[in-house]
């Protein structure tokens, strides 16, 4: 058996596998997107009945769509407003806790991202019923914050690991109060991470389905609305909406990756920053 030829076989095998994998990944999305431009009454690309933009037109007149978009923005803003400071404070706290306490606290704080999203939605719903608070955008904010704060905490923690503790000591030594150390040293150092965390938090919130499902009450978010459309309202308008979603996500992904890369210039290999609907997302260790 010839060693060289077995290598060639292996190589072509790998190539085939790669092509298959990426086709598997992208073709379904392309197929779905193409259907948005088909004149067919049903969402399908075959048979092709001619190019049209009418399904995008239909979206413009869909008032439900616009109100759900409003709700998504509201919930997203609320989640950012809560989870970024919560994550920041928790990371600062962990940073100084003793090792044993820290391991325990860390375990509790990251546990929400290891739980199915529906559980977080359900527990929030049940808990707030005790205070006579029903589902709605505010509960969606609280339920999502439970796990999105974990992501923010992890991002801040990664940044804090690169904090030189002598900066704080030097500032104190020069007469800074604790508050001044926070304002002049810590916060400027953490600011870029805070922006990143806010973006991640917003995207996570915007895309969230499983957790929101149980707590949105009547304040339907765009993802909830989209899921409903996908399940029942079968016209290619869904595909048109999908295309917009995809374009927005791609734009956000590219922008965020580019920004992150620019920030972490010396780091050679890209580690994907993760924000997606499923929440077991591996967050980048910076």
């Amino acid at each position, binding site marked *: 058996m010839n060693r060289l030829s077995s290598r060639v076989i292996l190589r072509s095998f*790998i190539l085939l596998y790669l092509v298959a994998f*990426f086709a598997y990944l992208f073709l379904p999305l392309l197929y779905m997107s193409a259907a948005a431009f088909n004149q067919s009454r049903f969402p399908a690309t075959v048979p092709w009945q001619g190019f049209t933009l009418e399904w995008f037109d239909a979206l413009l007149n869909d008032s439900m769509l616009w109100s759900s978009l409003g709700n998504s923005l509201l919930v997203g803003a609320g989640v950012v407003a809560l989870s970024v400071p919560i994550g920041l404070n928790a990371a600062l706290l962990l940073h*100084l806790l003793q090792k044993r306490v820290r391991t325990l606290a860390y375990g*509790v704080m*990251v546990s929400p991202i290891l739980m199915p999203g529906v559980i977080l939605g359900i527990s929030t719903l049940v808990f707030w019923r005790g205070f006579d608070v029903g589902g709605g955008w505010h509960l969606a904010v609280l339920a999502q914050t439970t796990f999105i704060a974990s992501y923010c905490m992890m991002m801040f923690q990664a940044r804090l690991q690169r904090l030189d503790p002598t900066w704080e000591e030097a500032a104190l030594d020069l007469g800074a109060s604790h508050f001044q150390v926070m304002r002049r040293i810590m916060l400027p150092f953490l600011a870029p991470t805070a922006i990143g965390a806010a973006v991640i938090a917003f995207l996570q919130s915007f895309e969230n389905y499983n957790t929101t*499902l149980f707590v949105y009450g009547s304040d339907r978010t765009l*993802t909830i609305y989209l*899921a409903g459309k996908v399940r029942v309202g079968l016209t290619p308008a869904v595909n048109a909406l*999908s295309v917009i979603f995809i374009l927005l996500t791609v734009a956000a992904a590219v922008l965020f990756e580019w920004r992150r890369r620019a920030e972490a210039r010396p780091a050679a290999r890209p580690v994907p920053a993760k924000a997606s609907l499923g929440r077991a997302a*591996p967050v980048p260790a910076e």
Partner: protein
Amino acid sequence: MQALVARYGGPITALMIFTSLVWVLGLLLLPQLTMIDYSFRPALPLAEIGGPKDVYTLENYTFLFGNAGFLTIFAKTIWSSILVTIAAFAICYPLAYYLARGTSIGRARLLIVALIIPYWINEILRTFAWMLILARGGLINMALMELGVIDQPIVFLGQTPTIVLGMVYAYVLFMVFPIYNVLDTLDKAQVEAARDLGAPWWCIHWRIALPHAKPGIAVGCISTFMLAAGSYAVPTILGGPQSRWFTEVIYSQFFEGMNWNRGAAFAFLLLLVCVTFIVIMMRLFRVSLGEVAK
């Protein structure tokens, strides 16, 4: 504690502790405990809550284990989620290895950017794409009929294997990145030394790459299993009455049966399944929680 106050001063420390407690207690632990508390109480009309009938009971749990239909769905959900996890691992491992060790950094980076984009796209859309492909008049049926392989469309939707397929597609990337991240730290010299010592390729993987990738595999498997077992979008979009998922059962207890106590019990069971899975994976791969949640 004193170190904290010394480092940040009283007011800032107080604020840090306050928001952390609000989060951990108010958003996480107390709601979880309330859910568990609910699950051990009977479903009662509003007037009787807190009354003499409101006692702790196991009836919500015994109900599940006495109901063959629900029990089957519960078992099937767990089993199928394990299948999804295994399939995702099988598909992903070669890719992760290729990206980390099989190609130049430049090309790896390009491929990773290509992976990130679908990774960021909403799960609902990714599932919807497969719905269009697998529908009665979808791409596959049209193609097969056109080719004359079949003359009646095959009913894919509503079948459990279809859901497994859809989930593998939806969650596969949650397996790639954790494995890639650890394989990326594998010392190239190790692989070369093994090859130099005459180890065949499967041996290199079995003895060097896979052991090194253990933490990443554990994370990938935990993520994938959790997403699959807790998925609501995929089974509702690709499934049907014959292929119900346990999350759908939970949902219907809350919003159709209006039996929140039973729903809470089912949710708690789902949580227990996931926790058990995490513990098993940690034991199996001998990784600590710190490594898993990184």
